[in-house]
């Protein structure tokens, strides 16, 4: 028993000693914790400098190259392709039904930019197309004189014709094909950055034929030579003339102030049929009236095209001046009015919505007439509407207009150089 008691006491003492040791260790750990952490936790900074250096060390471990998001990378690649690609896409209004256009221009210039050349081509979804090439000496005699020689061929298979004159009916809508092959020599002289004059000589090989729009009658089926002079026979042309322009506007491609004026004279010499020879005078004036610190603009535009010839001569319908387009009577179909002479006025009120976006309200008024002496604005064709202008660094990039007239509404969309 004594042994047992001694053993029991001894066990109790051992257990008590073990409990004491445990308690002592725990207390010791608590007491020494700050010191332990100070020694063990060398990660804990002692100064602000160490704290910053520790953060940098952490980041250095996780450092990885590249910061752009995936979206930005792809965006950049697409932009590179668009900028670098020789292909351009746009709606450039090559006639009714021309529609979406895909085109390309290859430019080349020699060392010193003494010689430039280009090769271009474009086609629309309705098979209007144009191909051309040219060479230019841009700096003859210093910087003021340039010579250019260009040649191009264009085919517009669905140009619309409604008859000649201001009273033509929209119900007489027809279409015809016009093919031009042109060789042009042009001299341009710019004595001042705001003044340019030029003279040009063109050899034009013309072909007019049936239109390809199956939904419309072809022009020759509806109109005879009296209503559509030149529909029975065509002539090639030698065209020579000169023009001058003064550009007193500011901010190229998005003028807000100033005046632009241009005038030109051309002699159209019909090589095979002299009765189609005529003279043409074309003059245009633009004037911009800004207010509210240039954030509102009233843009006024006037243009007249006058043709004259001897009594036995006539301007063939395919060379007559036209009204109805994204820049003339915007409430009418393109080329709605044909005539030997025309006069046109546009007035547009533009207000800036934000830096890259303008709105516009516009009114158009114009008419075609038979003889230059009949020039007046009596009984004009009128249209009105509104438009949106999306602008980039270099001016208006996209123009969207909706025009209304007695013949309904028209939507016009034109892309400029987005890139």
């Amino acid at each position, binding site marked *: 028993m004594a042994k047992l008691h001694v053993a029991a006491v001894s066990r109790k003492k051992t257990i008590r000693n073990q409990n004491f040791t445990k308690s002592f260790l725990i207390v010791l*750990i608590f007491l020494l*914790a*700050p010191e*332990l*952490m100070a020694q063990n*936790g060398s990660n*804990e*900074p*002692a*100064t*602000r*400098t160490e704290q*910053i*250096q520790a*953060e*940098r*060390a952490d*980041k*250095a471990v996780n*450092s*990885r*190259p*590249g*910061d*752009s998001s995936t*979206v*930005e990378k792809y*965006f*950049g690649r697409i*932009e*590179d392709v668009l*900028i*670098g690609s*020789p292909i351009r896409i746009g709606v450039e209004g090559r006639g009714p039904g021309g529609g979406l256009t895909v085109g390309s221009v290859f*430019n080349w*210039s020699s*060392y*010193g*930019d*003494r010689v430039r050349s280009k090769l271009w081509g474009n086609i629309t979804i309705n098979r209007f197309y144009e191909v051309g090439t040219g060479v230019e000496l841009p*700096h003859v005699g210093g*910087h003021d004189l340039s010579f250019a020689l260009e040649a191009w061929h264009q085919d517009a298979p669905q140009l619309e014709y409604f008859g000649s004159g201001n009273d033509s009916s929209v119900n007489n809508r027809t279409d015809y094909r016009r093919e031009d092959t042109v060789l042009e020599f042009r001299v341009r002289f710019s004595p001042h950055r705001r003044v340019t004059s030029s003279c040009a000589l063109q050899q034009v090989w013309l072909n007019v034929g049936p239109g390809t729009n199956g939904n419309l009658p072809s022009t020759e089926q509806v109109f005879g030579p009296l209503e559509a002079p030149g529909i029975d026979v065509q002539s090639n042309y030698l065209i020579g003339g000169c023009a001058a322009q003064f550009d007193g506007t*500011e*901010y190229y491609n998005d003028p807000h102030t100033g005046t632009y004026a241009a005038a030109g004279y051309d002699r159209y010499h019909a090589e095979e049929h002299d009765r189609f020879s005529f003279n043409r005078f074309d003059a245009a004036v633009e004037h911009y009236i800004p207010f*509210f*610190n*240039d*954030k*509102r603009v009233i843009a006024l535009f006037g243009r007249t095209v006058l043709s004259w010839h001897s009594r036995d001569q006539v301007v063939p319908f395919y060379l007559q001046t036209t009204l109805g387009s994204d820049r003339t009577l915007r409430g009418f179909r393109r080329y709605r009015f044909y005539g030997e002479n025309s006069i046109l006025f546009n007035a547009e*009120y533009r*207000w*800036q*919505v*934000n*830096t*890259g976006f303008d*709105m516009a*309200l516009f009114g158009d008024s114009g008419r075609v007439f038979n003889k230059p002496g009949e020039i007046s604005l009596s009984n004009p064709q009128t249209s009105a509407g509104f438009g949106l202008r999306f602008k980039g*660094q270099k001016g208006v990039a996209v123009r969207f207009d909706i025009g209304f007239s007695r013949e309904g509404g028209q939507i016009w969309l034109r892309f400029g150089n987005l*890139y």
Partner: protein
Amino acid sequence: MLALAGMFQASSAGRAPKFYPDDPIQTMPPPVDVGQPLVQKVNRVYDFMKQSRHSDPRPLAPAEAINTLGDVPDSEWFTNRHGLRRMNRAELQLGPGPAEGPQPPFTIISGKSEGVSDGFRFEDSKGRSYFAKVDPIGFPELATAADVIASKFLYAVGYNTPQNEIVCLKLSDLRLSDSAKISLSRGRSRKMAWNDVKELAEDAHHYSDGTFRIVASLAVEGEYVGPFRYEGTRSDDPNDITPHEKRRDLRGLYVFSAWLNNTDTRAGNTLDAVVERNGNRFIRHYLIDFGSALGSHGNRPKDAPAGHEFALLPPSETIERILTLGLDPTKWELASYRVKPDVGLFESKLFQPDDWKSGFPNPAFLSRLPDDDYWAAKQVMAFTDDDIRALVETGRYSNPRSSEYVIDTLAKRRDKIGRTFFAKVLALDHFRVENDELLFDDLAVKYGFRSPRPYEVRWHRFDNISRTQDLIPGSGSTRLPDEAKQAAPGSYFSALIVALDDLSKLSVYVRKEGNHFKVIGIDR
């Protein structure tokens, strides 16, 4: 035991002191080696579209990359200059240097005839490389003066900028390198010819003696690794540990940009360059291209909305402007401005410092808080009228009236900045303890924006680990309480200062070091 160790760690982390012994730091630690960072690309159009989606102020987050006084320590981003130690006239006008400008003849090594404004790069006779831009025809001195003046101001404030200066030259001062190339539109380029040089020169505004002005921007030292963004950090720069939208120096850039009307503050007008010192490579961050500062928009005078609204408005405002047909003009559209060809549109009457807008939203600007604005306004107010005059002279306006107008406008905008941003916080600064008294300047009073006002001061014991404060009874003045005077070195105290007129307040922290007290922190 593991559980206990974890508890200790958590406990220890919770006890990180508010102030370290080396607070407040005046300089960031030396940068660590960055290695070979890649060239970062920021797509200009994408950046514009992305940032324009968010024009509202960002969630409130206090500024970082500051010391415990709320100041910005010197770093590869910012070096305290005129706001800390007044620069003299010569130093202000010199900028980053060197003092010697480009030495003719200038050999053109590349040209640019794309984009909004033409330019070229040249080497001077000493082999130094420069970027050059000209003034647009009809607007003599407009862009070149703005570029130089803004760069000198921003350098004096503390940013890294290139050495920009005005150079007048004739075509005969230029040479063309045989290997020079000119970049054209649509990503094309070709060998550059003398005709290209002549055309670039022809696009410049000329004086009657046939000379034309360029701004010659000395190429900054180092390897260029692209621009920096105004948000996030560079993932390949271990020294870049603070999200840029939280950096006080970038938030405060809003105020300097507003002052200088530098609307084109975007990532594309920044530059990161790797420099090497003693074998250690690190990135230095630059601001570049200030042609859209003051009244200039680079190639023409600024538009009336510049500085007043972003390029893209929120949809609701856009619709409102469409529907009102432009017949509800804004005040800046109605204002009568004096737009001079050489100064452009730069004014002070409509300028609202807290409502100024950069060209498009800048995430750092939209993240700023009143104490960020205060810090920057303090720097702006450090420029006296004479300082402004010295800096504007670097733009070398031919017409003294234009120079005077710019000086006067900058001075008025400066005062508006001080008046506006000193009213949004308790503008007490320059704290120091002298003769057992806490002294400070009320900047709003010092600059005459308000009359002197009474303050209440409550002293506290401050526990640097638990960050708790205990009021010391009876302490009600700027004089240190007896308890603080008798405290052991290393003791911390704080003073809560309340302006009794508008109840704005701040706390100042002092630490006893030996027998004196050091101001170590400010909570605004």
